[in-house]
Each structure stands twice: as structure tokens, then as C-alpha cells.
């Protein structure tokens, strides 16, 4: 049996303007970015800490070698954006839960937003303006492909 709607029930309540539910989208973002971050971070950890000589192999030439490959440029850009926003939104949740003082909460939320924006801009600029062969750089510290040119 199908339920019969109350007559004119559609126009008894005043129609509210539909607002974007940011809290809901934040909730969805944590889960969607979380799935991507599991893959991105474990991949990052494998390449940098597990394979080869692990952490001891990391230096300027190592990073330059990775970023000579567009694959890792995209990988690290996604990591930067997804992880920082995921972490910033997580910290926002904690501040909303535990910072009872209004002023303190406002200060902390602004600090989180500011550090997120600043670090995303900084990190993105670093990745896309990176010079693997800086002029006058100590050749022993540069990746091998700098010598070819």
C-alpha cells in the first residue's frame, strides 16, 4: 500500500534557501582523501624508507632524480594537497571538540587555516619551480644528469 501524502504538505512549511552543507562535505572529504592517502603515503614510504638503502639514500640528488619523473611530481603534489587538507580538517575537528574558550578556538582555527594555505602554496611552488641543476652548485651534490648538459 502506498502512503498518501498529507494534502498540500509541500507548501505549508516555508521554503528555506538550500545552503551548502560544508560539514557534510568535510566528512566526505576525509573518507575520499583517506583512501587516496593510504595508497599515496604507503607508496611514498616504500620508495623513501624501504627500497634500496632507505632513509640513508635521501639527499638533494635523490629528490632531483625523483622529480625528473613527472609521475613523482604528480604523486607528491597530490600528497601535499590531500594530506595537508586532510590533516588541517582533522585538527579543526579536534579544536572544535576541545577548545572551549571562544577566543582561543578562533585563534587556533585561524592558525590552522593560515598554516594550511601557506604550506600548500609554498610546497606547490617548490615542486614546480624546482631546479635540479642550480648554476654554481657543487657538482658532487647534484644528480648525474646535470653533467650531461
Amino acid at each position, binding site marked *: 500500500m502506498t502512503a498518501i501524502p498529507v494534502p498540500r504538505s509541500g507548501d505549508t512549511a516555508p521554503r528555506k534557501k538550500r545552503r551548502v552543507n560544508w560539514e557534510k562535505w568535510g566528512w566526505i572529504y576525509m*573518507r575520499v582523501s*583517506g*583512501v587516496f*592517502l*593510504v595508497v599515496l*603515503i*604507503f607508496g611514498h*614510504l616504500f620508495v623513501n*624508507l*624501504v627500497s634500496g*638503502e*632507505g*632513509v*640513508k639514500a*635521501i*639527499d*638533494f*640528488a635523490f*629528490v*632531483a632524480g625523483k622529480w625528473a619523473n613527472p609521475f613523482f611530481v604528480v604523486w607528491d603534489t597530490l600528497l*601535499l594537497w590531500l*594530506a*595537508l587538507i586532510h*590533516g*588541517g580538517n*582533522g*585538527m579543526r575537528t*579536534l579544536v572544535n571538540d576541545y577548545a572551549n574558550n571562544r577566543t582561543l578556538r578562533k585563534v587556533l582555527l585561524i592558525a590552522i587555516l593560515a*598554516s594550511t594555505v601557506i*604550506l600548500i602554496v*609554498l*610546497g606547490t*611552488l*617548490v615542486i614546480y*619551480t*624546482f631546479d635540479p641543476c*642550480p648554476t654554481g*652548485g*657543487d657538482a658532487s*651534490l*647534484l644528480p648525474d644528469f646535470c653533467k650531461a648538459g
Partner: protein
Amino acid sequence: MWSWVLHRITGVAIYFFLLVHILDTSLVRLSPEAYNAVIGTYKTPIMGLGELALVIAIGYHALNGLRIILIDFWSVGTRYQKLMWYIVLILWVILIAGFAPRQLMHVFGS
């Protein structure tokens, strides 16, 4: 309750490492010497143990995060939330057992 407490603690720890990690990596834009000097400190025994702790924290946060997604979106997720937490803990131990020897070998090996 503990699954949730651990998720928050590991989340905060990972967040503060991320802030530092973006800043230290940004030194590649400054000069090879500056970057190598700072990344050199990551290869010391104390920081090597710190990286192990970081991976342990990330391992829990990742596995429990996937569990949270299953609780939220899988039709019978809430019914199995306790069982899934035990599975998370088992996978976490396996992950640590796989990574720890490798990391200790890299940091303390010759």
C-alpha cells in the same frame, strides 16, 4: 573508545610531522647544501627511531581509517566494527613486524 582515542593521537602526531616535513623538503629550493644538512639529521639513530614511530602511527591511522570507512558505508559495517578493529590490530602488528627490521637495518646497519 580506544580505537577512536588512538586515531586522534596518531592523527595529531602525523599532522605535526607533516608540517615539519613540508618545510624541510622545501629546502631543496634553497640549495643542495641546505637540504642535505637537514635531511642528514633524519639519518641519525634517534631520528631513525622517530621514523619507525611515525610509520607505526601512520599504519594505525591508515588501517583504522579504512575501518571507519567500512563502518560508515558498508551495510553491515557497524555490526562488525569490533571484529574489524581486531583485524586492524593484527594487520598493524604484521605491518610493524615487516617494516621495523628493515628500518633498523638501514639506520643501524653498516
